[in-house]
């Protein structure tokens, strides 16, 4: 094994076999031992059956940056898993399975793969039968195989079952112990040394961090319609929200989810919605509404494979242009694509602040991989010490010359001292008041309107006012550019090779960069977290210094490379793409990147294309 201090475990079976929950127990055990874990659940759009697997990379020392490639250990919960994965188990690895019902026959295995057949029926005969018995026995054997600490494993089980199910936890511990003892008697441990640093780490997913970040950052209203892979934000909030004075509202569709947060935000509530591409399509008109009414709102967009229903449970990064082009017309916005699970926490707080400061929609762009994978975070990576910036809110308004509302006709005259909701200001941001404030009544209209909010599009479309109001709104982009950061650069500023990517692929590309660096390549990495505004000048300056650029994206059209070309005129040398629904694997990606480096600069008109499968 190349890395003695890290290992990859894959658990495969059918939906309903309880794979994710037994994976969670092992992940928690390792995290509590002070190890790093990065887990990914590859599931299908069925509730029962099909083929699913959960993979985790566990390691000590440096942070683990991905869920890894081929497994060192395979836990097979059914025969199908053997057929699909057994031959991929690495040299000196192991396969754990229930020997009562699963056979490992006629499969070409790598060298020295240990077969841990466990007689589950025999081992558990005095326990009451339950369908996930074999997972528990298998987990016990895994603890032995990897040299994980038994008491920590027990603690993880107790914590997952909670105080309400103490007996269930005890049974599971006893059953797992049978697997542990049997493995200890019959097999030898894996040649791996998983030594933690003693820090008990938290296990978080991107979506749990969106939810926790929203709550911490003062979100009081989250509205959404169920859609994979965004639903787990709702699931995290639902049992917790009301305790903290927050409403989690499931709506009838995404049209409602979007529009209801605009309404809530109008009253001064920090409001967020979340969805995937299909739901986002329905939200776009409402996003434009928020921009026109200059009402803050945050939309979390968790991408999955498209187009249409596409790949409901698979990852992709193909909705970047959907977000950039969301809604008709020109309006100010920002799109932030967080780069790790912990960063999801920071990104949503940042989005709420920007949204209130600039009174315009902010989109947080994630994908299934980032939102649903679990990773360990060390204390301090996220904290309760955050900044809440509500922007300019006036709590009172005193008109200089109160209007005399004694008219008996339909309307009253204008008054120069009246509050201007859409006052033209140098920043483009007009201080807002919230309903309930005396003397400052206004109507927010989706039609073009003047500084007071009075519609200009009906009786006579005043061109001057139109231009003035467009300019006022679009001026917010200047501030948004100032308040967001340009691309992240890691590695040397001058390099022979530059990797480019956005959002969720950050850690995976770092893993590749570090591996290349180790091999002696002078390589850096330009990563986009702020997708809009793209910080064109800064980006162009960075790219001009690059000798060979490789753009890596999980989509068919390398949308970021297109965006870069659109905004800076810079053409990337190599386009690496993946759109089979699974995240990039480290070894495959490294191979492709090395092939690109070997080819060097491509003189042809269009960039060189590589599709990774």
């Amino acid at each position, binding site marked *: 094994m190349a890395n003695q201090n890290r290992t990859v475990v894959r658990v495969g079976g059918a939906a309903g076999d309880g794979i994710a929950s037994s994976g969670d127990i092992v992940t928690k055990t390792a*995290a509590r031992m002070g190890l790093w874990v990065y887990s990914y659940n590859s599931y299908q759009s069925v509730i029962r059956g099909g083929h699913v697997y959960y993979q985790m990379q566990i390691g000590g020392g440096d942070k683990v940056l991905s869920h890894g490639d081929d497994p060192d250990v395979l836990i097979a919960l059914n025969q199908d898993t053997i057929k699909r994965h057994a031959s991929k188990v690495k040299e000196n690895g192991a396969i754990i399975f229930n020997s009562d019902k699963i056979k490992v026959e006629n499969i070409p295995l790598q060298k020295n793969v240990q077969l841990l057949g466990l007689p589950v029926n025999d081992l558990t005969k005095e326990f009451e039968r339950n369908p996930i018995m074999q997972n528990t026995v298998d987990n016990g054997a895994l603890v032995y195989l990897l040299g994980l600490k038994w008491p920590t494993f027990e603690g993880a089980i107790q*914590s997952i079952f909670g105080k309400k199910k103490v007996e269930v936890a005890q049974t599971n511990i006893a059953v797992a112990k049978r697997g542990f003892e049997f493995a200890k008697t019959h097999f030898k441990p894996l040649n791996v040394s998983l030594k933690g640093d003693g820090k008990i*780490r938290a296990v*978080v997913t991107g979506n749990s961090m969106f939810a*926790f970040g929203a*709550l*911490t*950052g*003062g979100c*009081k*209203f989250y*509205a959404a319609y169920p859609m994979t892979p965004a639903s787990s934000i709702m699931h995290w909030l639902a049992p917790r929200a*009301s*305790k903290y*004075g927050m*409403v989690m*509202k499931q*709506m*009838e569709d995404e*049209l*409602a989810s979007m*529009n*209801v*947060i*605009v*309404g*809530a*935000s*109008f*009253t*001064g*509530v*920090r*409001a967020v919605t979340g969805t995937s591409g299909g739901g986002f399509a329905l939200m776009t008109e*409402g996003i434009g*509404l928020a921009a026109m009414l200059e009402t803050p709102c945050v939309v979390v967009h968790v991408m999955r494979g498209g187009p249409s229903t596409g790949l409901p449970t698979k990852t992709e990064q193909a909705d970047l242009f959907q977000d950039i082009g969301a809604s008709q017309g020109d309006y100010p916005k920002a799109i932030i694509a967080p780069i790790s699970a912990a960063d999801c926490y920071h990104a949503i707080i940042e989005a709420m602040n920007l949204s209130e400061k600039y009174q315009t929609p902010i989109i947080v762009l994630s994908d299934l991989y980032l939102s649903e994978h679990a990773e360990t975070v060390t204390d301090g990576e*996220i904290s*309760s010490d*955050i900044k*809440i910036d509500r922007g300019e809110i006036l709590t009172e308004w005193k008109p200089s010359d109160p209007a005399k*509302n*004694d*008219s*008996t*006709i*339909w309307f*009253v005259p*204008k008054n120069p001292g009246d509050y201007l909701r859409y006052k033209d200001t140098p920043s483009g941001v007009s201080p807002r008041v*919230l*309903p*309930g404030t*005396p003397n400052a*009544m*206004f*109507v*927010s209209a989706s039609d073009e309107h003047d500084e007071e909010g*009075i*519609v200009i599009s*009906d*009786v006579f479309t005043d061109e001057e006012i139109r231009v003035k109001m467009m300019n006022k709104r679009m001026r917010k982009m200047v501030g948004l550019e100032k308040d967001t950061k340009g691309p992240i650069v890691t590695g040397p500023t001058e390099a022979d090779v530059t990797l480019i990517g956005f959002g969720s692929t950050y850690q995976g590309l770092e893993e590749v960069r570090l591996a290349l660096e180790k091999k002696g390549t002078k390589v850096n990495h330009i990563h986009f977290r702020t997708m809009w505004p793209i910080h064109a000048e800064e980006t162009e300056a960075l790219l001009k210094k690059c000798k060979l650029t490789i753009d890596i994206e999980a989509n068919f059209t390398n949308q970021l490379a297109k965006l870069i070309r659109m905004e800076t005129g810079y053409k990337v040398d190599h386009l690496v793409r993946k759109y089979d629904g699974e995240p990039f694997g480290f070894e495959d990606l490294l191979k492709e990147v090395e092939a690109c480096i070997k080819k060097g600069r491509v003189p042809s008109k269009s960039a060189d294309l590589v599709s990774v499968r």
Partner: protein
Amino acid sequence: MPEVTVVKNTTTTPITEFRSKVAPDWCPGCGDFGVLSALQKAVSNLGIDNKDLVVVSGIGCSSNLPGFIKSYGMHTLHGRSIAVATGVKLGNPDLNVVITGGDGDGFGIGVGHFIHAMRRNINMTYIVMNNQIYGLTTGQASPTTGRDHKTKSTPLGNIEYPFRPEGVALMGGATFVARGFSGDGTQLTQIYEKAIAHKGFSVVVTMSPCVTYNKLNTYSWFRERVYKLEEENHDTNNFEGAIKKSLEWDNRIPLGIFYQADKPTYEESEAAYRLGPLSKQKLGLSKEDWNTLYESFK
């Protein structure tokens, strides 16, 4: 439980407080003038402060109404007024929320929100100006256009059957369902007052003739057919009776309150409001709460 303010008719607000700076741009004779006037009178009679009133509309002739009444207002997207208004009320239940719009806005493009708003019983009032035609887009058939009615989009006569909003509202679970007529301002004002004072989701379908594009369902067409439910001793607590009355059309058209019921509202049932209106709460988590949640990830 949130504090529920039942508005009492003891003090009134001068009606001039609800005059806006914008003159209505509806066609002369449009039924919507009657609606605006009755709404201004109703909120004035109820003593509502204009700073605490939010009028939310969608798109269409009738949806221009918020611009013509002095209060907080939102003129939103076609069909989305109820969704936006739901957010306003849930954001700050202390506000009085009135939704205004037309039959195309509410029963065409926005019908999904209409149905779901009723089963939530959020304390707000939905006034639909039903002119049985699309006016602002110059006269196409709407969901409430009658069978055989010739319009721009149905030149040979409408071959669809009309949507019956009052019956749908009853079945949908609205706790206050009424029909008004903009040709009878006195009754309309009374209905609006009761609807706004009602605790829960109230629907008032208001027959509001389009004098430009609907030459069939005119003021005189209605005057020949309408009668008042209260004059026939209709029992507003009787759900089945209300359903029966909602089916009457063509020859006799009932006006007034079909049904009213007292049920817990969404705001009363949602635990988060124990800490007050969302818009008035302190933001974020205490250090202690944060730590408890963070530790639960370990």
